[in-house]
């Protein structure tokens, strides 16, 4: 039916056979074209979808599976808790001074032992700031320390985990009575204790570490004892940072006090009306989390500015919890922490980004202790009535988030919020910094400097070649410049990094002088030529001027090279990088934005040149004739008629060049130094989104935060070029509509 009706549409169509074949061919071609178009669209959307899919999990919070609270028979009020791998077993220090090993799955006590044999039921739990272990205060100013480790064994096809209680260590404080204490267990086996005397309120800092000589297996013990300057206040809570450099205390009236243990200075109270009811120290020991009786949570850093003492710096606030904060427990692997309030609310936060990952209710109001699983995949809350609340959770990308990627963040040790990219560090407790802003900045900086060179050179070159050059030379010129585009960018990058960068460093004066000298020579040459009698000039064919001009360019460059040492000496004191650093007060890197501008120009200029040359060549001759016939000079014609008419094409040339510059990877990878800094200084390096992907993807574990962040930056790159191209297309279409009737 369809074929018939279509056949009728063809007026006077040939014999039925040919017409049918034509229709078939026509249909086939149409399907093919449609398939091609759809295919491109589909693959584009596919890429976009894939990028989104990989990046999307970054924005999810934590999923927590909270099991209802349960009472375990025989378990009394809980003073401290430790959670083992897989959240199967836990070790509890009771208020009664006994340590119990729990099987959380079966909900029973597996084993029970006093913290210190022979002294059962006498102790009071101390606070453990970090490390795997318990501390218990005994009468007579003694503190028992017990380390807890986890042993795995493989049995009946599954991994079993058992807690190993370390030997009992009794530390004498020298006080008659200890009213509050805290302990830190070091990985290597040492510990540090902070304790306050109940008689005179003095605070003592005790440190003990072991060193085992690997040859003799001799154990040397190093001990230190430091009585801190008295404050006269009673501390409810004490805390120590893991490196033992700072101590913190919370007084009865909720004031925060801290000591710099290394300098031995007087304790300092935090000014202002901050009220503290609980405190915790994040992984790495730099972030102090304070919880208030009003549920407010904030993070503080100890920062030492050059030449000054340490000061406590307010880093950020978190979403407050309901009720008063009772306990804070930091994660073992990242800057996450768990908070419990006296309303029974539990909440998970992430320090660096200030995000609240999850909030929920324990069902138990008086939570006395919190524990995090060693892999940060489970937590445990212990009630004062002996209840246990277990939860397993997944927070795969807690360090991610819109704020982390695009906001200014006050990182540990930074005295002001900054945009920083630093995905890996030397230690396990390194704070990952995932700001994409410096990368976007780097991309824009590289593009900006490259375009600064490429746009004028590309457009003016195209203008000269298409409008002023002799056609014979023009036909030679265009393919030559287009060959430039076919140089692989890895070669450009290599040459830029290895040859150009040192050359520019030593010969920057020549680079500056060359355009000036060449300009002077060409202008002088032009002026001289215009003084020659017309009759003489007419002997040369039109477009001949390019030959002397090229000679002058060469001459200018040669002069520049000859003059360079003298200029370098008089302008820059013979040492350009040094001059930049001293006079301009900015750092000089050998691989910098100027190098990129030069190298990337090689990739971008051919694109801009070739497309704008076409745009110039497509300006109707009739318009040029019309202008010339009105008595306009060639230059006037080019500027007032050709340039505006070719502007849509030139605009797309610039946009396509821009797209190329933004996406360029190899050149920036090889010749920028890849330092993710934000600084417009042209003598600095930078790191672009694209180079960053190339640099980091081999290091990024599949599915990890870094991996997904790289996908996000790819998405951003995609979005950047997409927006740019769309904007370009809209502008171009509008411009073209103006000239459409030509």
């Amino acid at each position, binding site marked *: 039916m369809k074929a018939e009706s279509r056949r009728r549409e063809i007026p006077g169509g040939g014999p039925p056979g040919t017409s049918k074949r034509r229709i078939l061919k026509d249909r086939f071609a149409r399907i093919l074209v449609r398939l091609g178009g759809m295919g491109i669209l589909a693959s584009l959307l596919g890429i976009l979808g894939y990028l989104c899919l990989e990046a999307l999990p970054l924005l999810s919070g934590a999923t927590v599976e909270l099991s209802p609270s349960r009472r375990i028979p025989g378990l009394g009020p809980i003073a401290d808790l430790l959670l083992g791998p897989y959240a199967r077993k836990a070790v509890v220090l009771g208020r009664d001074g006994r340590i119990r090993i729990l099987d959380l799955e079966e909900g029973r006590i597996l084993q029970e032992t006093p913290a210190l044999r022979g002294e059962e039921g006498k102790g009071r739990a101390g606070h453990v700031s970090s490390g795997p272990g318990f501390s218990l205060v005994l009468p007579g100013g003694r503190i028992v320390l017990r380390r807890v480790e986890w042993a795995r064994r493989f049995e009946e096809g599954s991994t079993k985990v058992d807690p190993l209680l370390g030997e009992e260590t009794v530390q004498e404080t020298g006080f008659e009575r200890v009213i509050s204490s805290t302990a830190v267990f070091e990985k290597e086996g040492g510990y540090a204790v902070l304790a306050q005397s109940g008689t005179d309120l003095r605070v003592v800092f005790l440190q003990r570490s072991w060193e085992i000589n690997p040859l003799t297996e001799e154990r040397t013990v190093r001990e230190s004892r430091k009585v801190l300057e008295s404050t006269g206040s009673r501390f409810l809570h004490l805390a120590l940072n893991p490196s033992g450099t700072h101590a913190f205390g919370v007084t009865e009236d909720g004031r925060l006090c801290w000591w710099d243990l290394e300098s031995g200075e007087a304790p300092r109270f935090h000014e202002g009306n901050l009220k503290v009811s609980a405190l915790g120290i994040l992984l790495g020991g730099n972030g102090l989390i304070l919880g208030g009786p009003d549920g407010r949570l904030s993070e503080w850093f100890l920062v030492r500015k050059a030449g000054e003492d340490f000061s406590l710096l307010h880093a950020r606030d978190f979403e407050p919890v309901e009720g008063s904060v009772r306990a804070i427990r930091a994660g073992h692997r990242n800057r996450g922490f768990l908070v419990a309030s006296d309303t029974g609310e539990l909440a998970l936060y992430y320090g660096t980004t200030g995000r609240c990952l999850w909030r929920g209710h324990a069902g138990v109001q008086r939570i006395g202790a919190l524990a995090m699983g060693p892999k940060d995949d489970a937590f445990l809350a212990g009630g004062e009535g002996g209840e246990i609340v277990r939860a397993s959770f997944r927070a795969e990308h807690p360090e991610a988030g819109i704020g982390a990627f695009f906001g200014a963040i006050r990182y540990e040790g930074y005295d002001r919020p900054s945009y920083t990219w630093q995905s890996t560090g030397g230690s396990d407790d390194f704070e990952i910094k995932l700001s994409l802003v410096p990368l976007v900045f780097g991309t824009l900086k590289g593009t900006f400097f490259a375009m600064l060179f490429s746009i004028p050179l590309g457009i003016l070159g195209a203008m000269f070649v298409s409008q002023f050059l002799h*056609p014979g030379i023009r036909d030679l010129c265009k393919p030559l410049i287009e060959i430039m585009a076919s140089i692989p960018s890895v070669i450009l990058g290599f040459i830029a990094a290895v040859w150009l960068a040192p050359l520019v460093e030593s010969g920057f004066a020549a680079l500056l002088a060359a355009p000036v000298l060449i300009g002077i020579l060409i202008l002088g040459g032009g002026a001289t030529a215009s003084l020659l*009698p*017309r*009759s003489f000039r*007419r002997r040369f064919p039109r477009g001949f001027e390019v030959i002397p001009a090229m000679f002058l360019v060469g001459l200018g460059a040669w002069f520049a090279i000859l003059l360079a040492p003298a200029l370098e000496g008089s302008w820059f004191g013979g040492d350009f990088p040094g001059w930049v650093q001293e006079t301009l007060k900015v750092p000089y890197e050998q691989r910098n934005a100027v190098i990129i501008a030069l190298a990337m120009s090689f990739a971008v200029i051919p694109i801009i040149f070739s497309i704008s040359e076409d745009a110039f060549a497509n300006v*109707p001759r*009739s*318009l040029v*004739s*019309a*202008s*010339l*016939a*009105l*008595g*306009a*000079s060639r230059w*006037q014609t080019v500027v*007032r*008629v050709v340039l*505006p*008419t070719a502007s849509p094409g030139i605009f797309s040339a610039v946009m396509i060049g821009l797209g190329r510059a933004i996406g360029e990877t190899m050149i920036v990878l090889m010749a920028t130094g890849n330092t993710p800094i934000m600084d417009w200084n042209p003598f600095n390096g930078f790191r672009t989104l694209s180079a960053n992907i190339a640099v980091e993807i081999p290091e990024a574990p599949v599915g990890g935060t870094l991996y997904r962040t790289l996908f996000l930056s790819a998405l951003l790159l995609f979005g950047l070029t997409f927006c740019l191209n769309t904007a370009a297309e809209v502008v171009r279409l509008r411009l073209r509509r*103006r*000239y*459409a*009737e*030509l």
Partner: protein
Amino acid sequence: MQQAPFEEPLAARLPGSPALAKGGGGKLPDSGGEEVPDKVELRGLSLWYGTKRALHDISMRIPRNRITALIGPSGCGKSTLLRCINRMNDLVEDVRIEGEVLLEGEDIHDPDLDVNALRARVGMVFQKSNPFPKSVYENVAYGPRIHGARKRAVLDEIVERSLKGAALWEEVKDRLHESALRLSGGQQQRLCIARALAVEPEVILFDEPCSALDPVATGKIEDLMRELRSEYTMVIVTHNMQQASRVSDFTAFLYMGTLVEHSPTRELFTRPREARTEDYISGRFG
């Protein structure tokens, strides 16, 4: 459409005027009998495009304030000849010209002559209308701006005068700042004439100005040329014999690059001296 001022001098033309094609003398007897001074004179003009010779030793005189028509079969060199008068042939590669073209007695190929100034004196209207992709106003103001006019009031005045001169003012005065490309074909062609007038040339060259227009638009342009006759010297290339006879005072017939006949229009069309002219105007070839 014929108008009396044209009809009369043509009707009263002198019979047997001397062969205009062969130069010499500074004055040309008008069809009205008075001596008309030359505006442009071609002396032994030959032109080669590469090795191909397009014009053969052409000598003719173009009288001041008169309309001269160039007719001839396609490819005979009419446009080439026209372009010689404002040196638009310079734009063509590989062109060689011999002979002289005198404008007011000055050789336009003089190496010390500024070709842009020459083109300001000798305007041109092309076969296909070619307004710039700018507004109507900017199109007309283009020439004056090129030659240094800056003041808005001056430009306004020139634009209005030129558009009135090209009989376009009434039609476009409310849309001066709209794109010229939205005008009709005839309006665009008149805009091109206005653009040429704005530079205040002495000579205007028309290369088949009406070939793309309908009879009404053609009529308007012809009327316009008649009105401009008192102030400008005009040369028009046309394929339309009626048009040549309607508007021109003198007609030159070119054939294969040679000037066959150049006489007052009425004479050429009623009593051609050359057999080839007669064949051509009676439609036997071309």
